[in-house]
């Protein structure tokens, strides 16, 4: 059942990517108000979702304990970052930095490296702060920004708990490999984004 669950989860996730509507700085309008707009935001912006998914896969590969820590660290740091960006956000984080972070975390998943717990938590916290800051900054002029911020944090919590929970119980070699291949694809996308960021 877990295997089917992972396959279905991966298919849904990719379907989400493929159906993703414009990933812009502005919130999409779900018609249900700012909390729901926030809930939908991470799922519809691949720039945010890709590194968050890579981080989740990394935590899942590390096992249940690591997954639980990242479940607290990633959405928590994202929330703190959003509040900081919303309150004080002046400089925008550069596109190349986001691309480099995406590449690095994807590569860690592809390599299936055993990292110390503290390092994984630190990476999750740094990622959350960086992207949360960018999100919060974009929300600064939105009405109901705090509700949207709460929605984004809840959405990330759901993504991390569902996906890391699935990956943490994986034992079959091919399923672990599928996770590593996903990481490799995310790293490759991050590298192309890095090249892209030097163009304009």
């Amino acid at each position, binding site marked *: 059942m877990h*295997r089917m669950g992972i396959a279905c989860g991966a298919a849904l996730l990719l379907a989400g990517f493929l159906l993703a509507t414009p990933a812009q700085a502005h919130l999409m309008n779900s018609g249900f108000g700012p909390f729901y707009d926030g809930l939908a935001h991470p799922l519809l912006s691949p720039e945010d979702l890709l590194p968050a998914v890579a981080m989740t896969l990394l935590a899942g590969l590390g096992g249940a304990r690591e997954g639980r820590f990242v479940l607290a660290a990633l959405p928590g740091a994202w929330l703190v970052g959003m509040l900081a960006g919303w309150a004080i956000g002046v400089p925008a984080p550069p596109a190349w930095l986001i691309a480099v972070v995406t590449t690095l975390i994807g590569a860690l998943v592809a390599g299936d490296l055993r990292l110390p717990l503290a390092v994984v938590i630190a990476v999750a916290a740094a990622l959350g702060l960086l992207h949360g800051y960018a999100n919060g900054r974009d929300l600064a002029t939105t009405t109901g920004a705090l509700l949207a911020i709460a929605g984004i944090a809840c959405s990330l919590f759901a993504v991390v708990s569902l996906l890391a929970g699935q990956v943490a119980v994986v034992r079959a070699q091919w399923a672990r490999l599928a996770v*590593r291949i996903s990481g490799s694809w995310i790293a490759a*996308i991050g590298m*192309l984004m890095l*090249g892209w960021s030097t*163009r304009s």
Partner: protein
Amino acid sequence: MRLRPSIILLPWVLVLWPTGASAHITGDQVGGFVSGFEHPISGLDHIVAMVSVGLWGAQLGAPAIWLLPVTFPIVMAFGGMLGLMGVPLPGTEIGIALSAVALGAMVATEARPPLWVAAVLVGIFAIFHGHAHGTELPPDESGVLYSMGFVIATGLLHLTGIAIGLIHRWPSGEMILRLGGAGVAAAGGWFLAGGEADLLTLIRAGAAATGGWFLALAGS
């Protein structure tokens, strides 16, 4: 390794999905994904090389068969990044045509060099392929969605090669794979000579390889 229905179905879900998506949602962003996805599968020279990477991996077995789909996308994206940054790489088209010749020859002869030799060979070609894509990218698409489509399509080409390569477990399948490798090498020779990378070429190359194969069989 027993294959479960879920693994076999997954690539198909991924392949079939974008068409459905583009039918309903229009706009630059989805267009970015679709054009990224179409780019690697629009040139026959690229397709045959990517698929034969998968075929060779399947012939080599573990650990190459799993090392390959994990490392190749990263190396290719590195080449793509160099292309996007405008770092010049001479002889890209020749490198791509040569990659089909070399990889096809490896599959045809079922070559088993040490793993690092295979990795370096495939890695060099990966940079050429990635670089060509990087320099050809259209400037005003959505970068992240284009990159996603591009990486997913290339990854699926490898998985297709590996899936076809699984027939290697049967003696007749082993023969067919080697024949396919000869076809890829012949197609690469045609590209190298400046031939068009179209479907007719593939058919011609397949016919030439089949003829050569029967001649070799008759001679032995």
